[in-house]
């Protein structure tokens, strides 16, 4: 087994004191910010990006992986103890988790969430090891026309399938693609949308966009609607589970994992759908369905596992094809670009040690999280008491520092403020954030593949439509775009109301 020896090499690489330290920093910071209201893993990775440019890419990726998983652990703590989930993926956990906490079973809810996340994360990472090389083997054969088609599927998926309104998703995507156009054209050297500004000629750095939209936008949005009275936090002791809780939890963990991983792995799958499916399944299969709505442990165990398994799943397209399916993965990809590494099917060939160390660090980080979170839960819960003026002032402080550090020019700070106001507008009008970020990061790549396809065909537009893979992609895109029409025409089917379900992309 080639993979196995690669993975063992990855483990050997991470088991140095310094790398373990980075993993520990990652999971600690990740959990802390996951618990803190208003900060999600995507914002954290964006804020930390500029200061990691001085580090070795492998070490930075180890840290990011820890933040990615840790953020999810922390998020479940918040939704169980405070009943106001910060991330859309934790909405379902809050349904039963907060009821359990109110009934005095907070310790059990936190325990089943933490252990379930560990189980799902470990199985999910193992599946990643099995699946990723197959996807790479498939993707490495793809030419530019196919890559273009896959990128277009990612665009349409992020805009039309996730989120609550298709037209708002596309609006957000187009804004992102427009930001991606700014700067000097990479082939001809022509300036586009720079208005003669030398500072815009290099384009807008993805870090500035991400920090502006996530951190500054979020801080301004919260400032406009700050809850003057903080929510009540339910006090909690050390998490533990009794024999009965274990008996009721282990099956939902495994079923949740089965839902989460595939949804994470497909472009535009996300974590919202599998957590919700897992919740519905557990309610149907429960021996005592009447407990649902009053704090059923199955309703915490299943969705939490689905959430973490989907996080592992998102790493498959991210590492194997270079396509992010959630905001954190999108920013981790832009980090790779920052070090001059090109994400995509060749990444694993050119940087095998980086990829396999990252995978190994996921196993290590997951274990650290379990050891860290079970005993420390009461301390994490204290973070929820931090005064809000200091919290959001701190976010703006670090956002400024990160954006300035990229190019050391005050111009970027004005850009950051402008993008923060765009982020405010997105939140005010219910436009999803993810399509914009995906547009900024993948837009230039899509243009490159489009132009390369035409180069290969000598300018013939048929060159854009390559082999069968591209055909399948375009059929999927047509299906997604025409779906509202199809739903109306098909007999006996009511128009799907997916367009207006309140799912939001988390910051």
């Amino acid at each position: 087994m080639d993979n196995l020896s690669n993975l063992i090499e990855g483990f050997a690489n991470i088991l140095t004191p310094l790398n373990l330290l980075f993993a520990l920093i990652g999971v600690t910071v990740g959990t802390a910010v996951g618990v803190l209201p208003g900060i999600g893993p995507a914002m954290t990775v964006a804020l930390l990006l500029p200061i990691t440019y001085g580090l070795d890419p492998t070490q930075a990726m180890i840290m990011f992986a820890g933040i990615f998983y840790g953020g999810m652990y922390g998020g479940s703590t918040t939704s169980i103890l405070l009943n106001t989930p910060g991330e859309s993926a934790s909405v379902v956990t809050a349904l039963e988790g907060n009821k359990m906490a109110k009934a005095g079973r907070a310790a059990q809810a936190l325990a089943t969430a933490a252990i379930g996340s560990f189980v799902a994360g470990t199985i999910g990472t193992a599946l990643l090891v099995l699946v990723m090389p197959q996807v790479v083997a498939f993707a490495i054969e793809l030419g530019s026309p196919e890559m273009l088609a896959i990128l277009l599927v990612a665009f349409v998926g992020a805009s039309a399938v996730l989120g609550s309104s298709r037209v708002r998703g596309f609006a957000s995507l187009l804004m992102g693609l427009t930001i991606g156009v700014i700067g000097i054209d990479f082939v001809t050297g022509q300036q586009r949308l720079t208005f003669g500004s030398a500072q815009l000629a290099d384009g807008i750095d993805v870090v500035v966009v991400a920090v502006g939209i996530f951190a500054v936008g979020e801080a301004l949005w919260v400032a406009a609607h700050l809850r003057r009275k903080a929510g009540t936090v339910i006090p909690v002791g050390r998490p533990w589970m009794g024999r009965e809780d274990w008996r009721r939890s282990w099956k939902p963990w495994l079923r949740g994992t089965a839902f989460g991983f595939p949804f994470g792995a497909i472009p535009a799958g996300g974590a919202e759908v599998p957590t919700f499916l897992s919740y519905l399944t557990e309610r149907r299969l429960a021996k005592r369905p009447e407990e649902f709505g009053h704090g059923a442990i199955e309703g915490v165990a299943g969705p939490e596992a689905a959430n973490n398994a989907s996080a592992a799943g998102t790493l498959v397209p991210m590492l194997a094809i270079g396509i992010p399916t959630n905001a954190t993965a999108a920013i981790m990809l832009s980090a790779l670009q920052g070090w001059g590494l090109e994400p995509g099917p060749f990444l694993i060939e050119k940087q095998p040690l980086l990829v396999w160390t990252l995978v190994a660090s996921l196993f290590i980080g997951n274990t650290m999280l379990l050891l860290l979170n079970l005993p420390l839960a009461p301390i994490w819960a204290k973070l929820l008491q931090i005064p809000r003026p200091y919290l959001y002032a701190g976010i703006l402080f670090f956002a400024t520092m990160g954006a300035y550090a990229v190019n050391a020019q005050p111009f970027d700070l004005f850009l950051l403020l402008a993008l923060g106001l765009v982020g405010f507008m997105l939140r005010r009008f219910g436009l999803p954030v993810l399509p914009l970020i995906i547009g900024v990061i993948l837009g230039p790549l899509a243009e490159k593949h489009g132009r390369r396809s035409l180069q290969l065909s000598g300018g013939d537009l048929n060159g854009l439509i390559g082999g069968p893979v591209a055909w399948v992609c375009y059929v999927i895109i047509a299906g997604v775009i025409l779906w509202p029409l199809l739903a109306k025409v098909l007999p006996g089917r009511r128009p799907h109301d997916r367009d207006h379900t309140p799912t939001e992309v988390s910051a």
Partner: protein
Amino acid sequence: MSDPQVDTTGAAATTRRDRAQYAVCAALAGLGVLLLVDAARIPHVTSSNDPLGPKPVPMVLGVLLIVVAIFYAIDVWRGGVGEAEAGEDVDLGTRADWKTVGLLVVVFGVNAMVIDTLGWVISGSLLFWGCAFALGNRHHVRGLAFGITLSLITFYAFAIGLGVNLPAGILKGIL
């Protein structure tokens, strides 16, 4: 986009029509026009290596932006409302607090103007204190103390420790 059941968004949709959304449509259309105008300015450069040239992509994006703006406006006209984002600290029951947002924008802008001259340690401390003040903090000494501590720690850890670009400003030589 063409979903007839737009009214199912919830109570907010029926009680209040959100006309400010038309401004977003106008902004999107304006962005589209801007892209088209800018693209028209680009000379038509093509070669055998690059038969497409730099022009078509911004042109296509410009047209799509205008199309999406029209569909968006139709959706708003039919009563569609984008759901404002909720969060742990967000209370959507209140009106937007523009005074706080305005103050934050001012503090942020001042920092951008003075960061190079005063240096990160001073401007960052003021930024933290000012933002906390705008958000309702009235413990001035404590706010300033936190700000100074944070900017000193970040300056030494990142600028000196990791080589991150942060300006020393007028404190150059002292820090």
